């Protein structure tokens, strides 16, 4: 373990934060200098996330600890010591989420360079983007409840500012207000829950809290607040209504980052359910709560997507429905955790693998729809048509993202959904039926979008469009490659990056606690 990987958890947060503060200053020197700086930062972040992931996955279940302002303690502690400083604790799941955030940050930044070239406010745009990235990394890497809340709020503020970034657009302002209000509400309830836990146990560290948690009535109230607040921030139906507004109104590359942000909230939810509470709660009940939320999310998201005529909003509802698959996979795993059958782990592998696949596919779809909207000058599907004649590559990329998200073999979406279908079928065939049916409907949704936007005869409106510049094509190509490679070799990726993540939740609670407090 080199010095770089030792400091990787904090560098992943500090470097984007540094970029966020430096961008407005560096931006005065010119766009090229600014873009170089941001490009270097996201590349460094991606490299560090990969290094950290390699390191953590190689440690076979032992989390990496990083102490802020350290030098006093050596971990694991011994003899009844408790950590007093803020800790970052990176286990398989955190490292996995870091990979997702790095993928989206990398592609989102490079897509934005071209996408936001002609528009004003680029400095603030990239500043907020980097702050959002830092917040997402903070949420997934931290090992401290209050720190988690702080990063949650950083992502909330940055995300809402990005949603309402286009101040000349009235819907954008409306969405910004709604998103900020809902995010704040959820954040405050999370803080209340953290206060309840702190009041009882006097700790804020997740591992220490998990070690002493009892499952009392107050704990249950805290759990309810955390569960609902984080599920809302992830966009679970029936608390999803802000999500299509936000994804639909944010600038296209930022919609992808917002999806990564929702997944980070989902990660927080899983971390709290599996690691913080773990066996002290009735896992069956919690699992079924997640499953019910998941089924609602899948079904309502897909059916609402079917009737949208705004391209971004259609993709946004599709993205909402995919959150349901992750909830379903992990919910099935949680529901059967007491008995620990083999298919519980398979379900969690599916749900967690789907996070990565969803980030890649939804990211590609948002990028492609951003390019389409920029070229066509409208978001209304009823005004588009025949764009495929001129925008061949964009249409191909959109089609690949769509079929992959809808779970058509041999793309990556099928690989993860296959695991979810099979495992949820074992719990109850009804779950699998809803999941498969909704996937088919999702394909229908994207057939509608594809047909309306790209197919049809050449028209005057579509005569002068063209494929976007190489700067926008390259990130899309990268995501297409991710989709195809993950689709063709799912066995390799499930074994090497998904299973450590799933195992960290499934039976990694003791390792998580012991890494801090000692066995």
């Amino acid at each position: 373990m080199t010095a770089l990987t030792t400091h990787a958890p904090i560098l992943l947060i500090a470097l984007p934060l540094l970029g966020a503060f430096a961008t407005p200053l560096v931006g005065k020197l010119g766009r090229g200098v600014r873009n170089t700086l941001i490009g270097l930062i996201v590349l460094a972040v991606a490299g560090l996330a990969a290094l950290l992931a390699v390191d953590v996955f190689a440690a076979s279940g032992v989390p990496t600890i990083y102490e802020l302002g350290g030098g006093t303690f050596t971990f694991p502690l011994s003899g009844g010591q408790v950590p007093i400083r803020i800790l970052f604790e990176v286990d398989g799941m955190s490292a996995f989420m870091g990979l997702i955030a790095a993928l989206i940050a990398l592609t989102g930044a490079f897509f934005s360079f071209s996408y936001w070239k002609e528009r004003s406010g680029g400095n603030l745009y990239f500043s907020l983007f980097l702050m959002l990235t830092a917040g997402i990394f903070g949420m997934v890497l931290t090992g401290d409840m209050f720190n988690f809340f702080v990063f949650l709020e950083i992502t909330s503020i940055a995300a809402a500012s990005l949603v309402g970034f286009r101040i000349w657009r009235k819907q954008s302002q409306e969405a910004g207000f709604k998103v900020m209000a809902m995010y704040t509400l959820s954040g405050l309830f999370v803080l209340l829950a953290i206060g309840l836990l702190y009041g009882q146990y006097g700790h804020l560290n997740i591992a220490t809290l998990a070690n002493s948690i009892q499952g009392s009535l107050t704990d249950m109230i805290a759990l309810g607040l955390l569960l609902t607040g984080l599920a809302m921030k992830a966009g679970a139906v029936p608390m999803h209504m802000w999500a299509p507004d936000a994804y639909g109104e944010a600038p296209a590359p930022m919609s992808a980052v917002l999806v990564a942000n929702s997944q980070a909230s989902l990660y927080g939810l899983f971390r709290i359910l599996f690691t913080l509470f773990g066996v002290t709660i009735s896992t069956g009940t919690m699992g079924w709560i997640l499953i019910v939320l998941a089924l609602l999310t899948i079904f309502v998201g897909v059916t609402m997507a079917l009737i949208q005529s705004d391209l971004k909003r259609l993709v946004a509802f599709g993205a909402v429905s995919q959150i349901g698959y992750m909830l379903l996979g992990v919910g099935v795993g949680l529901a059967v955790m007491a008995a620990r059958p083999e298919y519980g782990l398979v379900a969690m592998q599916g749900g967690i693998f789907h996070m990565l696949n969803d980030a890649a596919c939804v990211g590609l779809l948002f990028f492609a729809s951003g390019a389409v909207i920029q070229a066509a000058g409208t978001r209304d599907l009823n005004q588009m048509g025949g764009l495929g004649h001129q925008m061949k590559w964009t249409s191909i990329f959109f089609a690949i993202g769509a079929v992959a998200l809808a779970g058509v073999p041999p793309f990556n979406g099928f690989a993860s959904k296959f695991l979810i279908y099979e495992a949820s079928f074992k719990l109850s065939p009804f779950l699998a039926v809803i999941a498969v049916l909704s996937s088919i409907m999702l394909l229908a949704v994207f057939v509608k979008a594809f047909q309306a936007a790209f197919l049809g005869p050449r028209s005057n409106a579509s005569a002068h469009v063209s494929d976007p510049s190489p700067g926008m094509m390259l990130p899309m190509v990268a995501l297409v490659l991710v989709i195809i490679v993950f689709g063709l070799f799912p066995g390799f990726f499930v074994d090497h990056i998904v299973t450590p993540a799933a195992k960290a939740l499934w039976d990694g609670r003791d390792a998580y606690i012991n890494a801090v407090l000692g066995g």
Partner: protein
Amino acid sequence: MKNEGMTVIVRTVTRFVYGMIILFGFYVIMHGHLTPGGGFQGGAVVASAFALLLVAFGSSGLKGHVNLHWLQSIEEVGALSFLALAFLGIGTAFFYNLLANSGGFLFGASVPAGPNAGVFAAGGLVPLMNWAVGLKVMTGISAVVIIMLIGSSKEETE
């Protein structure tokens, strides 16, 4: 009656107190490591003096005196210096306080355990971070106040 400030009583009192408010704000920042307060609180106090000026004298007197770009640049400098101070200790760990108890003249004094009379030259990086945060907060909140004022007054003229 817009942007023209308030009555002569308010203006006169403002002239008396705003300097003291700023002074108090800087005191709070400077003694953040010894007394209640710190960078954010002191910065907010300074910014409140600024807001008081705006309320009392109206925003018409603002033109030509304050450059928003400069305010925002100073804010970024404050944030960057905070991060730079945090990076100083990266040899041990991020946020490692490498000046504390170093014996150096820069806040390196050691503090006896328990109640004491307050050692100003102690605290290591903490007072410096307080300054960085104070700089960021005073300029940041001032900028927010100005921007909101501009935004809302534009609306009235439209």
